[in-house]
């Protein structure tokens, strides 16, 4: 379980000029990242008549509006305020293109203007309501908080891990364990027997000669009586280095 984010969700009610409630309830606001937890607010009301409406602005947990603009001084909700502008026009929700629910492009919308012709800047304290000249009302009813979680569950991941570890084990074995065939041949001769030891490696095996020699020594030292050991003979000629030729060691009893 993962915590993706958290923040404030003020309860805002928007009615259109005809009096219909077109948006109500808690709206998730996205923190901007500053110390005061100022959060971006976007409400889309496509059912507003005569024009679709979008309410855009900031939620400020401990708000102030000064020459730097609307900002929050402290992350706790000591003086919650909303600073909003209302825009109208075609929200583009019917275009068939997916949109981000937390963002809106206001460049294609018209801001609702006041008597002086400038866009109306609404500032709401908790419990207040504001009426725009064209009849739209926005009210700040209450404050909730939210947290976003991600819950991930993959029932097969432990088996993926187990099988990959087993595969790695097999890989290590196949790469580092040399595969060899070793022969020991006993040939009776007058006065004893000749022991021949030979080895053949599956592929490159630099230790083959040594190990065959070691085996021959071990076998011959287990015998009693005089020992004659001739040096290992390495076959050469047309055999490519990949196939190590047989090596023989003679041991006489």
């Amino acid at each position, binding site marked *: 379980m*993962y915590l993706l984010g958290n923040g404030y969700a003020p309860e805002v009610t928007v009615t259109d000029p005809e009096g219909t409630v077109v948006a109500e309830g808690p709206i998730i606001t996205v923190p901007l990242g500053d110390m005061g937890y100022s959060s971006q607010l976007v409400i889309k009301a496509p059912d507003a008549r005569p024009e679709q409406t979008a309410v855009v602005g900031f939620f400020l947990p401990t708000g102030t509006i000064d020459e730097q603009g609307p900002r929050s001084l402290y992350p706790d909700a000591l003086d919650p305020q909303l600073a909003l502008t209302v825009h109208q026009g075609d929200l583009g929700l019917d275009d068939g293109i997916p949109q981000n629910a937390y963002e809106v492009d206001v460049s294609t919308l018209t801001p609702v203007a006041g008597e002086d012709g400038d866009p109306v800047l609404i500032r709401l304290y908790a419990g207040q309501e504001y009426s725009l000249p064209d009849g739209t009302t926005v009210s700040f009813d209450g404050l909730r908080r939210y947290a976003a979680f*991600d819950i*991930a569950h*993959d029932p097969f*991941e432990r088996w*993926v*891990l187990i099988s*990959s*570890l087993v595969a*790695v084990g097999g*890989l*290590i074995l196949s*790469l*580092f364990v040399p595969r060899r065939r070793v022969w020991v041949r006993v040939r009776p001769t007058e006065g004893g027997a000749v022991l021949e030891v030979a080895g053949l490696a599956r*592929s*490159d*095996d*630099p230790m*083959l*000669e040594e190990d065959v020699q070691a085996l021959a020594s071990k076998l011959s030292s287990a015998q009693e009586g005089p020992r004659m050991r001739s040096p290992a003979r*390495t076959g*050469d000629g047309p*055999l*490519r*280095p*990949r196939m*190590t*030729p047989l090596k023989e060691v003679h041991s006489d009893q």
Partner: protein
Amino acid sequence: MINEQLAELSNLSLVVAIVLYVLAMFGFSADLASLSQRRSDRRLAAQESPDGARVLHGAAVTAGGASTAGTDGRSGSTGGLTAPTDGAGERTPGTMTAQKFAFLLAIAGTLLHVVGVGARAAATQRVPWTNMYEFATTSSALVMVAFLVFSIKRTELRVLGTFVVSPVLLVLLLAQTFWIVPAAALTPSLQNSHWLIIHIGIAIIATALSILGAVVAALQLLQARHERALVEKASAGEDLPEHWGRFGHVLDRLPSSTVLESLSFRIHSTAFVCWTFTLIFGAIWAREAWGRFWGWDPKEVWTFIIWVIYAAYLHARATGGFRGSRAAGLALAGFVAVVFNYTIVNTVINGLHSYSGL
């Protein structure tokens, strides 16, 4: 808290290490050049005396012929060349040769390199691999350590010095110029995660081994082509075949392509295991941090691509028609993917592994 003095010491150490590596590179190159010179001298002497010609002819032909399995036949025969009977300027044992000088400098440089990396770790109180600068300096230090460890015992590998020190030097210079950032603390999301140590640590080992393996594979390709050319020329009747002039003489002194091939295989096998663990540990960490063990993030994808290419290399070696040079080509393709993963994916492509802050 960042210990600024240790951070300064780290920078200083690395800069001095760069200087020492440059000197070591000169030494190794002088070693190769003088080998070429000695071979030319001997060739001249051989042409003037019929006995010497036989020794040289034999050596030149074995340069291209089949070597006995597992043994360093080439080095054996060329080893004979370095103890000449015609006194072509051999040094008395115990004197400082270019190669010894270079090797000592390389050791000194590596020591300072490791000290630099360690000082950075001590300064920041964490493992020294949390940004591109630290990753590059740590993995290049590992390349040098691996090379030194290999060539302390197997002295015939020291002659590869130039070709190992050069990429390490290049990486260090890139790190100091483009990727360097002041020693700083980790972002909170990365702190207290043991996976940082495990996953990135093994990725560093994998990268270092891939660099070393690529150097060996590239040399193997050149050597194989050189040997083929020499064999052709010898069978065409040339007495003392030559190919690629001075560079060819240098190649004659390097280990045979068979030896390089088996060395490349061993390095790449270990690197492949490390890349596999990088992927697995990365997936486990991703599950913990991001909620899923695989999300087709660009770096995840490219590490997987690296893994597939190296897997193809390992398979190629076991496949009849693809051994030798073709397999080496695949190994080099894998290395290109490693470089791409480290540079383009980190800086240009957008994803969860973005190193925009380097």
